[in-house]
């Protein structure tokens, strides 16, 4: 009985839409329903060149932002966890982007990136460089988005590492000190292996975020130029609410759900591993 209200809402907004998305991807045509199931939407999926671009972008985006954010997060956590003066201030600095709305900070980044008056190009101008069209050049736009994503996410992941670092037994470090181990050796042999469960946990969450966080696209590039920076969820949004092809958007959503299933399986693997470590 106590479970009922929460369950009703969960079913309405999670399970029912999943089922309906799958149904629509077979029975839907545009915004209408057909009487017979077809594979037309999926056939279109295979022929859609934009989708190939979008998928390539999405995977590249994840493949770069996730590892870079994680490496930065570990570095941040180590610095903030150490004995450095002013580490409280530093921790706040790293963490601030996490609490700010993506949309608002994207507006500031838009200014950094803008071609004529933008801060980055002014800076390059000082060094005599002609400037880069950060968001308008198809070969650069996606990387500009990545830079902002890394800035936004690294501090968030730092928190998990910070939590993990505080659980590491000080004795291990004392032992390492007796052995006269160098700082790098200590990190490689003690800290990093003990952070492994956290890294796996963060990895899955970072991948999930890479696929579901597209807010900055609305401000910075709108997926352009010519889809060079389009990502899967943004493409779903475009199909559903700009091109009004709900059925095709459903087929795309099924694709995204498949990615999530793979991530979920990975997560279960992670939980197994965590148990193993404890």
């Amino acid at each position, binding site marked *: 009985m*106590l479970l009922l209200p*929460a369950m009703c809402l969960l079913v309405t907004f999670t399970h029912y839409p*999943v089922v309906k998305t799958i149904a629509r991807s077979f029975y839907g045509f545009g915004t209408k329903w057909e009487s017979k199931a077809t594979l037309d939407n999926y056939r279109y999926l295979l022929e859609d060149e934009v989708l190939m671009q979008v998928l390539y972008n999405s995977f590249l985006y994840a493949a770069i932002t996730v590892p870079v954010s994680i490496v930065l997060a570990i570095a941040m956590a180590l610095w903030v966890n150490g004995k450095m003066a002013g580490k409280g201030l530093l921790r706040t600095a790293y963490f601030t982007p996490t609490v700010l709305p993506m949309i*608002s*900070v994207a507006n500031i980044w838009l200014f950094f990136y803008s071609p004529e*008056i933008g801060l980055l190009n002014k800076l390059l101008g000082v060094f005599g460089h002609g400037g880069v069209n950060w968001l308008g050049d198809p070969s650069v736009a996606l990387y500009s988005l990545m830079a902002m994503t890394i800035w936004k996410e*690294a501090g968030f992941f730092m928190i998990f590492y910070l939590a993990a670092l505080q659980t590491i037994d000080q004795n291990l470090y004392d032992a390492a000190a007796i052995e006269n181990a160098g700082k790098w050796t200590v990190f490689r042999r003690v800290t990093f292996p003990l952070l492994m469960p956290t890294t796996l946990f963060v990895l899955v969450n970072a991948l999930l975020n890479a696929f579901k966080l*597209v807010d900055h696209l609305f401000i910075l590039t709108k997926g352009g130029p010519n889809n060079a920076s389009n990502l899967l969820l943004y493409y779903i949004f475009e199909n559903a609410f700009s091109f009004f092809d709900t059925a095709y958007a459903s087929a795309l959503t099924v694709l995204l759900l498949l990615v999530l299933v793979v*991530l979920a399986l990975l997560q279960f693997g992670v939980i197994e591993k965590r148990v193993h470590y404890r």
Partner: protein
Amino acid sequence: MNRLTRIVLVSMAWLLGFVWLFPLIYAIWAAIHPAEYATKFSLFAPLTMDNFKEAWNEAPFLRYMINTVAITLIILTGQLVLCTLAAYALARMEFFGRGLMFALVLMQLMVVPEILIVENYQTLAGLNLIDTYWGVALPYVASAFGIFLLRQTFKTVPQDLENAAKIEGCSVLAIIWKVYVPLAKPTYLAFSLVSISYHWNNFLWPLVVTNTEKSRPLTVGMSIFGAPESGVDWSIISAGTLISVGPLLILFILFQRQFVQSFMQAGIK
């Protein structure tokens, strides 16, 4: 470790910190100076509050802010009540299919509502809730994350306390309210801070489901305000940005320690 590496490491840490804070510092700079100083840095640039005034007049910020606060509060209140009840049921009640129910709940951790925008929009259109607070809030009210966190916490409450309350003749709801809720206070605080910052910043779903000022939150308002077509200059956009992040930022600075610890606590579980 020799001195040189140490100096290099420390300066790297501070450089990174500076880069991480820079966008915010810059926004403050641009917002409190006249437009021509947006890219010219001079100690003697005149200070002004005009950008804030203009931004305030240019967009219905007050309305947006009321909307954001209302939506965030509706979601948080709903979450706290529903998740408490569900978490108690999943933690302490024996019933058929409990494991399955918990698995169904956990599904939402992966399949977050923003991914299902297409169908959820249809559902809410069917309920006539497009462009209302409830439309924005409903998909998030039952939070798998909240249920999960609270269930973990409730499981650590000693069964004896509950038995004692039962002997005193407390009803189930009274037991939850008097035994479990007070003991789970840190979890509630952690979850609330995470939830507030998530929903204050949420964009995609509100964008889809709102069409007028009536229910539009700050984030959606900002995306319209900042669009290049609207022809406002950078200083004013910066001022607008600061207005939109202001309340959350103040909250963050005041409760900094709790924020970091909450995110940490929420992360370990």
